């Protein structure tokens, strides 16, 4: 336990120091990793703790990003209002999608979330008047919260780091709370939980909404990082990358999505230097993880450590 605290302290310090020592390429890469971490951590609430595998999580990331870019660029709203609107809209969307998808569980849930996300994707492509279709929305500038400019890679990285830290802390507290425990109860023994008087549907629905909210936060970070949004963000590949981050790292663990998302983003960046075929590699990693390491990296390493300690 003591060494664990030490590890966390060391990684925190190195994360804070990073922008002062590394070049812009690495700072931007680290920012992308952090955004992916928030996204995967939000999905992990559903996949890991609620036992509900969603293949449509990109819908919330993309929806928040589109609302933010749309209201800022087209309507000229101030960034704070745009951000609040984006998060409120995404939470509402998650409430609606959750109410629909939770009519089913297991594979039905997965298929419905996938279908729902494809609808948002289709809208972003087709509703050209609102989303500018295949051209995407450009012209977004980063906000200046409290007068601090986020235009430099280092400043944006630190803001992202702060947001990621808040997100992970809140999710950790949530998972450890009474609500988090009952959520894991509905994952393992839904019938017993119902018999104990818990409203299984409500517990799952709130988890869906919370997961959607944090995916919206990831979407805000994403759109301000890119300063551009294209319908491809809403594609199944984005949802799949997020899910791969959760599964590869280890679903149902706090560190899992952090490790997994970092792995996916770094792999994607380095792979795209050498080969054009990212989707093929993504698919191959999926196959490999499922066949070789179905539990994910974090539980696998933990098992190895436990064996060594014995």
């Amino acid at each position, binding site marked *: 336990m003591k060494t664990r605290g030490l590890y966390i302290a060391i990684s925190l310090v190195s994360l804070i120091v990073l922008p002062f020592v590394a070049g812009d390429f690495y700072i931007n890469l680290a920012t992308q990793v952090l955004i992916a971490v928030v996204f995967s951590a939000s999905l992990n609430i559903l996949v890991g703790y609620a036992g509900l595998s969603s293949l449509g999580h990109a819908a919330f990331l993309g929806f928040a990003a589109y609302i933010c870019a749309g209201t800022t660029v087209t309507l000229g709203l101030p960034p704070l209002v745009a951000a609040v609107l984006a998060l409120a809209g995404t939470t509402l969307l998650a409430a609606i999608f959750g109410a629909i998808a939770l009519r089913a569980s297991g*594979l039905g849930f997965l298929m419905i979330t996938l279908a729902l996300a494809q609808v948002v994707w289709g809208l972003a492509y087709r509703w050209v008047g609102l989303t500018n279709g295949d051209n995407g929305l450009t012209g977004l500038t980063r906000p200046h919260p409290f007068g601090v400019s986020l235009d430099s890679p280092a400043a944006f990285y630190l803001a992202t780091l702060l947001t990621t830290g808040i997100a992970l802390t809140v999710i950790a507290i949530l998972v450890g709370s009474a609500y988090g425990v009952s959520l894991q109860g509905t994952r393992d023994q839904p019938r017993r939980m119902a018999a104990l008087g818990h409203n299984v549907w409500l517990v799952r629905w709130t988890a869906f909404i919370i997961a959607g909210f944090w995916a919206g936060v990831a979407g805000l970070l994403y759109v301000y990082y890119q300063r551009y949004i294209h319908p491809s963000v809403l594609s199944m590949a984005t949802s799949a990358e997020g899910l791969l981050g959760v599964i590869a790292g280890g679903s149902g663990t706090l560190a899992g999505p952090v490790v997994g998302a970092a792995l996916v983003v770094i792999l994607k960046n380095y792979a795209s230097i050498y080969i054009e075929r990212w*989707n093929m590699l993504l*698919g*191959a990693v999926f196959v490999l993880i*499922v066949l070789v390491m179905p539990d994910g990296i974090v539980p696998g390493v933990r098992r190895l450590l436990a064996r060594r300690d014995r």
Partner: protein
Amino acid sequence: MQFWVAQTLNSLAFGGLLFLLSSGFSLIFGLMRLANLTHGALFMLGAYIGAYLMRAFPGTSLWMAALASGIAVAVFGGLLERFVLRRLAGNALGQVLLTLGIAFIISDGCLLVFGGDPIPLSTPHWLARPVFLWGFIFPAYRLAVVVLAVFAALGLHILLDRTRLGAMIRAGVDDMAMARAVGIPVSAIFTLVFCLGSAIAGAGGVLAGPILSAYPGLDGDMLPLALIVVILGGVGSITGAFVGSFIIGAIYTFGIALLPDLAYVILFLPMILVIAIRPNGLFGRMAV
């Protein structure tokens, strides 16, 4: 008036194509509890194999290409089921992720091999000219697709409802443990059904060629439609897939024509309605 007649025929033809895609998906899901996310990719793979055959061997008719492509995709599906998916039997999430990964590989592989430009498949020349009926113009090929889909549905219906093999498949869908106990070779039937579903998807991809062409992203466009059809019609039900396909085909076609901005939202309303009122789907006997 010509607009309505033409769009009706378009929607029927598209519904027919959707049936070729979703009937296999529904059968596989119903029997094996496996959401086969490669199904859209198999449809696309079929279309590309057909396009390749017709280009490499001039004189190959669309029907020959569909047959060959169906067999090729069936073999691919059979190998996939037997040697990869079988290792994850009982692990539904693992299987879904695996099929998702393979779908990405197929889809990117097609892009690598066949390039990014859409490849149209040529219509058989005797169906290429329009037919005049009651003063309206019908594209003959679309009529042929509707007829083929109806025949495919009838064939599947007879196979499932009137043959011994069909009875064994239905037994496996209804109660797998009991089917095994009375000596039905459920394992072999799994592979067979997977091959059958893949074959229909592969051949369907070729038949879709003259209408949709083979293009990158065909898989991503078709898979969600198949999911909606199956959720709407009910898992494991051929009748459900048939009715669902034509409902979704009609809504999609008319939606694109009349309200292009909102076509996707409209597409999705019947699905919400069905999930809200009848979570098992219109003709389904079990929950999705």
